[in-house]
């Protein structure tokens, strides 16, 4: 308790220094966390891009859409491709839940989960007659455990299973999209037919992506979709990669560099400033050691002192980011910072004190 009081006194001893120090940490950490957030988002997207690239994915430019003409044979073909062989997926974004018209919905059909690393969230993988509903990390209009009713020709109720990790992404044609603010339905083609019949079929065809397919399979797909009433022109993802995704790589590299520089700046300035603050108190610590304090007591005091200096700006930086809609992951980052930095720096301060002649420090700095 005495060390706690002394540490608080240390902070209040030079209030202006404390405020400036806290301000510096706040600004640095805010930029650090913000850069990390952007970086994670980029990396999530790049993961998906790599997967699409590795699988030689094909997406389609839609030409004219004539009178839609669905056949069971073609439906079976699509179902086989998406559900059984997992060689295709599609994305529907026009679906909305009643009463939640302002909350975007992303329906991932077929191998969507596999491509965007959402397999573990998908019950459909074990039962293709099922659907799974998740929500993005920032969705506030509905909550985990809520029951949603959906379906066009047949209604079904499903419980929201949980939240996806922050920065979950998917790629729709040339754009990297976030799932953070969407309700996400992972479903199979079979289930989609059961609930929506041919509604949304046009969008399903327009947004379909094939992968691990040969040219014959692509030709067959185009032919069958043409028979359904949609003209599709294939576009190789890999051919478009540099044109459309080059900027993503570039951004990710720039962000990484920015993140590393910011991290370095934060760590160096934090360490230097903290050591300076400890140095200012070193004579006092030495006097306490001389008159009965143990090194453990001084360690406690430095820890409390540093926590007192670091916790307020970290909390503020996290609160601002949280209000801006970042996920809870940053709280853990913040807690990590709160614990690791003071611990490391306290040990540096303590080793400095341990290696010094305390009599010398006590008398020469007085």
């Amino acid at each position, binding site marked *: 308790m*005495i060390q706690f009081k002394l540490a608080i006194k240390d902070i209040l*001893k030079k209030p202006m220094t404390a405020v400036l120090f806290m301000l510096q940490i706040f600004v640095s950490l805010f930029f650090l966390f913000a850069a990390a957030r952007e970086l994670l988002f980029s990396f999530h997207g790049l993961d998906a891009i790599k997967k699409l690239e590795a699988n030689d994915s094909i997406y389609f430019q839609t030409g004219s859409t004539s009178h839609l003409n669905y056949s069971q044979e073609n439906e079976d073909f699509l179902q086989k491709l998406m559900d059984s062989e997992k060689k295709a997926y599609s994305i529907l974004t026009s679906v909305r839940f009643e009463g939640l018209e302002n909350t975007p919905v992303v329906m991932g059909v077929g191998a969507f989960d596999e491509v965007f690393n959402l397999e573990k969230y998908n019950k459909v993988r074990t039962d293709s007659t099922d659907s799974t509903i998740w929500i993005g990390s920032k969705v506030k209009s509905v909550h985990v455990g809520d029951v949603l009713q959906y379906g066009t020709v047949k209604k079904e109720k499903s419980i929201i299973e949980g939240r996806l990790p922050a920065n979950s992404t998917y790629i729709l044609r040339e754009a990297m999209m976030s799932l953070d603010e969407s309700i996400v339905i992972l479903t199979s083609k079979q289930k989609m037919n059961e609930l929506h019949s041919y509604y949304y079929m046009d969008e399903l065809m327009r947004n379909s992506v094939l992968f691990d397919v040969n040219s014959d399979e692509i030709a067959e797909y185009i032919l069958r979709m043409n028979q359904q009433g949609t003209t599709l022109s294939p576009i190789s993802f890999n051919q478009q990669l540099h044109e459309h995704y080059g900027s993503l790589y570039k951004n990710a590299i720039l962000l990484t560099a920015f993140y590393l520089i910011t991290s370095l700046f934060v760590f160096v300035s934090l360490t230097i400033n903290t050591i300076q603050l400890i140095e200012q108190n070193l*004579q*006092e610590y*030495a*006097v*306490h050691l*001389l*008159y*009965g*304090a*143990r090194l453990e*007591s001084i360690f406690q005091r430095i820890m409390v002192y540093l926590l007192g200096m670091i916790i307020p700006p970290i909390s503020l930086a996290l609160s601002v980011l949280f209000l801006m809609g970042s996920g809870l992951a940053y709280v853990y980052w913040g807690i990590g910072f709160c614990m690791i930095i003071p611990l490391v720096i306290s040990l540096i301060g303590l080793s400095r004190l341990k290696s010094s*002649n*305390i*009599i010398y420090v*006590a*008398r*020469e700095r*007085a």
Partner: protein
Amino acid sequence: MFHLIETIALHKKFTSGKNIIIAVEDVSLTFDKGTSTAITGPSGCGKTTLINMIGLLVPPSSGELLINSTSFSTINSRERTKYRNQFFGYIVQNFALVDHYNVYENVEIPLLYANPALNKKERRNRVQSVLQKVGILEKVKEKVSTLSGGQKQRVAIARALVNNPEVILADEPTGSLDTETSKEIFLLLKSLVEEGKTLIMVTHNPELAQGCEREIKMIDGNLLI
């Protein structure tokens, strides 16, 4: 015969790069309760190292230190800290006061680590009593940075006495004081010996040394016989 403190062939060497410096060489001494001893000698002769070894601030390289007939060669750091807090009272060269503390806060430091712990009221009574004794009670709330050299030394003495130690270790207690103030401070220290405290003092001042019951002269880490 029982001695309060006994050093047996105390030896201390320091290493500086490839050089080995022998600061104290095989010093054997005894100190009895209620006596005053001055350790004198030229700068760098090992006086301060010797007093720091006796005060458990610096471990000897070899030799033995007995306090109340107990060997301190193998004692743990907790026990050493306890002795530093309660058995010894240090008066450090240049006062070693914490400038931004007031007189009360400086004198209170040893009490914060006293075992058993003291409550605030007990600490206040002890601080006030010792400040009265050294004649500086009226300055209790003043920042030490505003005090004169003599007043600072009185505060340092009060801090050394506040836990009622058996032994007072004083390193150049009058080193930065004028002649008149030096005499006052020495008289204060002598009065403590008369009360039964043991005084071991490092000094360059021959007058102060002569005022002690015993003078030990050192040169190049050795006792001058």
